[in-house]
């Protein structure tokens, strides 16, 4: 390697490091400032805090934060179970078969991806209320399962595409049905792919605000984004607690994302392009 390309490569890396820092500045500042009490924040307003304390995080134990967290986990795990079950079956069908029904379904998924969800939320609110689903995780779980469906199905499909057909064909010749071959042969081989698909479904549900905001209206039932938004409306000056709550909310997202980031090009491209 010549000296010239060496400097060019590291110069470029330095530039990228600065860009990454600037792009993530809002999140970094929020996390840093969550380590100061509100009084300190309002008094000094330094960009980098001078002293650190965990007081805001301890203070969260006196708030419904952990109720919201529990609700978020219930909703996200429920929605993940539903959408992944539906999506692996659908994804397998899209990966292995070709016919008019599948083409129509593919188009329908693409339409759902672009669908203004508010259109369904108004009638669903009226439909769910007599059933007692408002302020219950059931309503949100059902809607998330569908909202997640396109992305999760495309990801599952592109994963099944990487599993060679020959494995099932051998089983089919031995008189095994297609569905049986799927459960006995393809599914056991899909562990890593299914894990990634499930984590994405979980992430989407955990991050979602709009649907939860419509259906979860009392504090006992709220998920983290909805609960913290309420807090933001009511105590807009208590920046310390607000930023601590937001930072803590973000942590699971970041950790899970690091596990699945290498799968994401696949899914995003499949969703954007294959249609």
């Amino acid at each position, binding site marked *: 390697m010549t000296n010239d390309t060496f400097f060019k*490569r590291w110069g*470029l*890396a330095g530039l*990228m*490091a600065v860009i*990454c820092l600037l*792009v*993530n500045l*809002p*999140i970094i500042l*929020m996390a840093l400032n969550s380590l100061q009490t509100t009084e300190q924040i309002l008094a000094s*307003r330094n*960009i980098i805090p001078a002293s650190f304390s965990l007081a805001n995080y301890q203070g969260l134990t006196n708030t419904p934060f952990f109720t919201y967290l529990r609700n978020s986990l219930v909703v996200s795990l429920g929605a993940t179970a539903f959408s992944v079950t*539906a999506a692996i*079956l*659908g994804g397998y069908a899209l990966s*292995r*078969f070709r*016919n008019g*029904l*599948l083409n129509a*379904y593919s188009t*329908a998924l693409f339409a759902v991806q*672009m*669908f*203004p*969800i508010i*259109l*369904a939320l*108004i*009638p669903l*609110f*009226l*439909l769910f209320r007599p059933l007692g689903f408002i302020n219950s995780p059931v309503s949100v779980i059902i*809607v998330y*399962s*569908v909202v997640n*469906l396109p992305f999760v*199905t495309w990801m599952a499909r592109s994963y099944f595409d990487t599993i060679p057909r020959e494995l099932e064909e051998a089983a089919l010749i031995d008189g095994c*049905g*297609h569905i049986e071959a799927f459960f006995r042969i393809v599914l056991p081989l899909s562990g890593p792919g299914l894990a990634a698909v499930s984590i994405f479904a979980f*992430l989407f549900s955990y*991050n979602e*605000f709009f649907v939860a905001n419509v259906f979860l209206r009392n504090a006992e039932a709220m998920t*983290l*984004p909805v609960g913290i938004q309420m807090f*933001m409306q009511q105590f807009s000056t208590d920046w310390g607690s*607000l930023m601590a709550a*937001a930072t803590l*909310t*973000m942590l699971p997202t*970041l950790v899970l*994302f*690091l596990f699945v*980031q290498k799968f994401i*090009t696949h899914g*995003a491209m499949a969703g*954007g*392009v294959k*249609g």
Partner: protein
Amino acid sequence: MNAALDTKEASAWRIRARQFLAPEFVTPAILLAPSILLLLVVIAYPMLQGFYFSFTDGLLMKSGDFVGIANYTKLLSQPAFWHSLRFSAIFAACNIVGCYLLGLGLALLLQMDMPGRGAFRVLLLLPWIVPSLVSIVSWRWMVNDERALFNQIITLFGGDPIFFLSDSNWAVTIVILIKIWRSFPFMMLSLLAALQSIDRSLYEAAAIDGATRWQSFWNVTLPQIKNISIVLCLLMTIWSVNDFDTPWLLAQGGPANATENLVVLAYRYTFARNDVGMGAATSFITLFVLMALVFFLLRLQRRS
């Protein structure tokens, strides 16, 4: 004669029936059944019902009477509707241009050879992956009052502090900036994948013909990513128009409805003013606007 026709028709039916019962059709149908059931319950049925609601004067607590197109005519006569339509259009246009320029620029940088490239790619995706609420909290902190970070920078250069969230024009600017920040990573990621799939030999051929780097970008790179770019812009348009989180969480569509888009307007009609008919009509108009845009952009793609 007739009998012969009948048997011919009957056998045609038998063939078709056999096609529908063949495992190649039945198996995928069984596999798709749960997904289709979900789509019918959560999308198709509510959509039909919502379409009916848009012709009634129903409330959240009691169903209303059929009022014909009264909701639509009332909506089209309201300045608030035209305002939110305009805001939705500005919001989508600025978001697409901003995301495309930023996304393409960063994708071109990420495509170059450098140490730590994988880590940079992941770090640049973070704004996209954090919950919308978290991104709004972090941005609000930077623009909230006269001593927030943005205003500290402005006063450093001798300017007067700006009240970003109480001035209409500034609130619109900030909400657009936040939306660009939240959605450029998707553009970057998809364009990066498109750039990496361009055949290397095209660049070699261009280099042999004596093309400069700019010429090869203009004549090789751009035409190669043109189609995917149109598809991405289409997706971005739709997602911008459908966005509720960014304008609502930043300022509830305020100040003075300045950042109220069609979805926020529909939400407000339904859940704040208890007017299901108007809410449903507004969301259907949103759907029509989207369909018109999709139609237009797809024509654009087909022509090219």
